[in-house]
């Protein structure tokens, strides 16, 4: 276990390093990327631009700029170019809505994805399975922001059942938090429920043909026991890895569309705004956050693997 964690940490450090260097370099080569020109303002004299460049160290060699930026990120003192506000404080402000979104939606889509996947597999070929297939495809085919807009219009505006967007902190008003998050959770989950149920259904149907399933049935085990202990346990493995990756993406701002439809002010919106301003430090921090989430959830997924399938050891 210790060796496994050590290896994963080393790997993670390498990934984080590569991602940060690449993000940093991308912003050096894109047109209009020179921050000094933008920071000096619209009617800047060459002298002002020069001063800004000196003051912020943009005249230093690239590797030095990278090193100082990373140093500041690590000790939490990095500020954005455009507004000169501490980046980590900004992200700490935007992280609660995004985490609420990720965890709630993640639970919903895992639960219903597994439920519908099992239902579809058990009733494969029958009308209910076909109905689930059509629903799943419909869910996958619906743009999230269209779904979100319809929800806002009907559930929020026309019928007045749920509040019209915005975020309420969990600590201040748990019920308000729940009602405000319900629509974003559903909007974000629908497509994933479709994907997960389809993947699981196919996996279960594949596993049902395995020899050990026949053996389990021959032993006289009940169908429910065979399904839960022998089939589902194995078919859940791809689902779990998918879940880890998807959740990491949401935490890292991948749910930007949902965040902006429901006006949650999450990490995704912050990232998009920073990208639009070509503001390197916030983008760097967000990318590192994504990479961290991917790594942490990757470790979690591997541990879940080992729990689901004892043949998998935590050494690789």
């Amino acid at each position, binding site marked *: 276990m210790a060796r496994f964690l050590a290896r994963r940490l080393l790997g993670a450090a390498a990934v984080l390093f590569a991602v940060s260097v690449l993000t940093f370099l991308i912003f050096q080569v894109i*047109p209009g990327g020179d921050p000094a020109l933008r920071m000096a303002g619209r009617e800047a004299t060459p002298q002002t631009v020069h001063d800004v460049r000196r003051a912020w160290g943009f005249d230093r060699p690239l590797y030095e700029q990278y090193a100082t930026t990373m140093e500041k990120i690590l000790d939490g003192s990095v500020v954005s170019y455009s507004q000169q506000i501490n980046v980590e404080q900004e992200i700490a402000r935007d992280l609660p809505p995004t985490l609420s979104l990720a965890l709630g939606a993640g639970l919903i889509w895992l639960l219903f994805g597994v439920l519908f996947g099992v239902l579809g*597999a058990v009733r*494969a070929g029958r009308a209910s*399975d076909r109905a689930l297939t059509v629903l799943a495809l419909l869910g996958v085919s619906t743009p999230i922001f269209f779904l979100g807009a319809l929800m806002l219009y009907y559930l929020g505006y026309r019928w007045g059942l749920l509040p019209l967007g915005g975020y309420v902190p969990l600590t201040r008003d748990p019920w308000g938090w729940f009602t405000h998050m319900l629509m974003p959770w559903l909007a974000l989950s629908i497509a994933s429920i479709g994907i997960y149920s389809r993947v699981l259904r196919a996996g279960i149907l594949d596993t*049902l043909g395995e020899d050990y399933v026949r053996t389990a049935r021959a032993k006289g085990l009940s169908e429910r026991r065979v399904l839960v202990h022998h089939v589902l346990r194995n078919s859940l493995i791809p689902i779990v890895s998918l879940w880890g990756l998807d959740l990491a993406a949401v935490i890292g701002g991948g749910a930007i*569309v949902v965040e902006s439809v429901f006006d949650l002010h999450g990490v*995704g919106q912050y990232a998009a705004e920073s990208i639009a301003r070509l503001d390197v430090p916030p983008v760097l921090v967000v990318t590192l956050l994504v990479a961290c989430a*991917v790594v942490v959830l990757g470790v979690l997924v591997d541990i879940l693997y080992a729990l689901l399938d004892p043949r998998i050891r935590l050494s690789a």
Partner: protein
Amino acid sequence: MSLPPPTPARSEPTVGTEPPLAAARAPAGPWRLVAARLRRSRPALVCGALVLAVVVACLLAPVYAREVAGTGPDENHITDTVRVGSRTLDVVSPTGVPIGPTWQRRFLLGADPNGRDVAVRLLYGGRNSLEIGALATLVTMLLAVLIGTLAGWFRGLTDGVLSRLLDVIWAFPPVLLGVALGVALAIGGLDLGVVKLSSGSLLLPAAIVGVVFVPYVARPLRGQVLALREREFVDAARVQGRGNVRILTGEILPNLTSTIVVFLPLMLANAILLEAALSYLGAGVQDPNPSWGTMLAEGIRLTPGAIHLVLAPGLMLVLVVFGVNVLGDGLRDALDPRAVAGGRG
């Protein structure tokens, strides 16, 4: 009857209704089997026809604009009125609320806040959305096949570099990466020396959407090539002294076609959706060019004033993407020799 003389076939006009011998006697090839299986799948056929109908309708956008609606996609009618039944209504009310569907020739699906005909814009927007989707899919497939086969075939350093490149693209959530590229490139356009894309060009979103999805296809292809290169028929080709290029194009690529065909509709559906999302976030198609994504974005901004502006482009998107997905499902089942209609349960 006897065999025709062995003259070059192209100089010989076909006599009578005799089918060419080779075709008549050839056993059904794998692709013909697939086509036959696909023909038996009614949902796939219906959805294929549906998608085709939408494509044709969008291609006929100028005809509809000229002959039916009598207005172009960018023409404003803010101060105009339109007769519905016996009443005369403002196209855009004095408070700025556009008219809803009239279900007649002019403003069939209503107007937008600029007094533009939504139905006309829907067809023109569909052209852009579908065009970008198709081009993006092409970009994804070309790059993925290239990267996947090279990485899988040469392994070693080539594989290392290409796979890390894919990892980097994969490290970012697709929408976020798309927004980043879209915003960055919308400012200055893209200049690759050989290819130049100006910031308003439709090729820009197509290229961005295409690149974002490359790892999703390139990875499985690489894995397949890694397995294929150890097979006997590849050894045989190598022993015959064939070079890398000939083995790749003659032996490996044909074995990848079914995977590629399965990915095509899937990627098309995803590309159309991502383009819509990018346009919604302002990083895709730029105004005044319509696309279903930009129209939907505009509708959402005006909610709850005019829900028809949300419903029209949104339902078109769902319709087309759903159709492509069902078609893709049917195609995958038709290509999978183990698949039995209705599952194995």
